[in-house]
């Protein structure tokens, strides 16, 4: 088996919780309980990013909030258990911090159903299945 050799990592690639919210397990036969993936963080960083209120509002409607809650917990960050009735700027700023600024540099995404692990290396999630899993 050939090993993938990665070039020396740059400092700024990191998996965001925005991306995590959109990913599920694609393993052969894994059809139930395959979302959300559980985050097992190894190296996490906080990186300030420009707050874009319009984008946050637009993105909010696309997120699965329960997965935001569980992912935040895995990174020791607290968010409201439910989306508040009024989504004011402070709430959107919190959302921005959670989905944009918490960066998983390394670790893994794990399926609760089949236990398949998807490694995160140099901030890039490897969602490739092996040839037996397709």
């Amino acid at each position, binding site marked *: 088996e050939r090993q993938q050799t990665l070039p020396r990592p740059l400092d700024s690639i990191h998996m965001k919780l925005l991306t995590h919210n959109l990913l599920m397990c694609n393993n052969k036969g894994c059809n139930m309980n395959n979302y959300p993936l559980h985050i097992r963080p190894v190296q996490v960083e906080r990186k300030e990013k420009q707050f874009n209120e319009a984008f946050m509002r637009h993105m909010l409607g696309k997120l699965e909030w329960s997965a935001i809650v569980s992912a935040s917990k895995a990174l020791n960050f607290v968010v409201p258990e439910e989306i508040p009735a009024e989504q004011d700027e402070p709430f959107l700023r919190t959302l921005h911090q959670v989905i944009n600024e918490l960066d998983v540099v390394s670790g893994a995404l794990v399926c609760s159903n089949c236990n398949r692990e998807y490694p995160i290396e140099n901030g890039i*999630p490897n969602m*490739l299945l092996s040839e037996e899993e397709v």
Partner: protein
Amino acid sequence: PHRKMKEYICHFAQSHPSFRLPELLSLVELYGGEAEYDEEEALALASKDDETPFLRVRFPSETLIKNICSRSMTIYGIYELWGVSDTYEGLVKQMICDKEEEMRTMLIGKKWKMAVEAFGRSYSRQEQLDVMSKLKDLPLWEQGSVSMKEYDYLFGVLEDIGVRKSATDPIKRVYFGPLISYGHREAIYRYNLRSRQFLGTTSMDPELSLIAANMAQARPGSLIYDPFVGTGSFLVSCAHFGAMTMGADLDIRTTQGTGGASVLGNMRQYEFMDQFVDILLIDASRPPWRMARPFLDSIICDPPYGIRAGARKIGKREKPKWRPIPADLNAAHFPQCVQYDVPDVMRDLLTFAAKSLVMGGRLVYWLPTTPEYKDSDLPLHPCLRLVGNSLQTLTLRWGRRLITMVKVLEYDDKIHNSLAPEDEGQLTAAHGSLRSAVYWRPRRDPTSSPLASDTP
């Protein structure tokens, strides 16, 4: 009641005629506007024989025009149409008849200049003055003051003389009117490939990359995804218009590059880091995205065609012996790949788009074509409507089409899970066997050659 909209003349850049109208209409829709034009004139505009770079269009407001021009790559400028004629005498007569009041009142106390633009050739300063002298009878000259550097109004004298004409040939047509706005072509030079840190074998022409971003309606607040991100040209062009961008690829080496240069290097070089969400390793034939709720505003990509870049997906090749991979080596295992046929790439792409795009969201992609292309080759999906099909000719036989589709119907697993062949398109598609199309050579049969009789 329908308010009669004012008429304007759009002056398009010479390159990529078939992309002009689709880009314009995409931007009209983006800004919630409308536009009226003559269908025959639009056909001439799109003609690859470079028939004309001009189109008369009615718009409801100057604000819409300025918005369109703030983003357009195909437009040089848009002018209010004061007069059009086949001769200068006719033009002067028409304007004295229709626009006398504007000419006498608009410029009081204002500075203005005139600029002569000719399609098919450029004019020296003296030649421009010669042209302007043909308009000396316009009351325009009595008003305001002419100023070359700072001006309130710029009047365009737009000559359509056709291609490859000499200065002595008569004009085909001339348009006249005040400039509303120039286009946004300066963006092309900002992303000139020479200044890019990272070039891969699939790097794209920045002009077309930006046009594609306009077809995708990249804008602040939108989330855009390239499933075959490669060197990240589309991430850069979409970030240029304020979108948040994500990309994925099968092979880490195409995104990481060599020597530290990468997709990320490009985003950093052009200061788009705040608009870079993530890149992932994904096999496009097995997308790991949850589909319960649509999440993408646009998908934009240049899928692998199997000729230049190589099209692969994960799969087991036929081999007599293989060993299972130990679980702890899964991460480092470089999965085996099998061929990923172009029709399958397209089918998977459209299905993915139908599921993941929000309503009104757009799929923009390059489809390779040969002269054997016919419209029934196009991949189809009941959830997506075709709104753009622009041909870029690359060689005599080989070209590609920028296809744009809009999601108009929500994906329903019960209905769309298995589609009839006519719903999927790609019926005996020419792009199903591209290698043979590109590399096929006619067998040498002396009797069938048209020059057979010349062969001794």
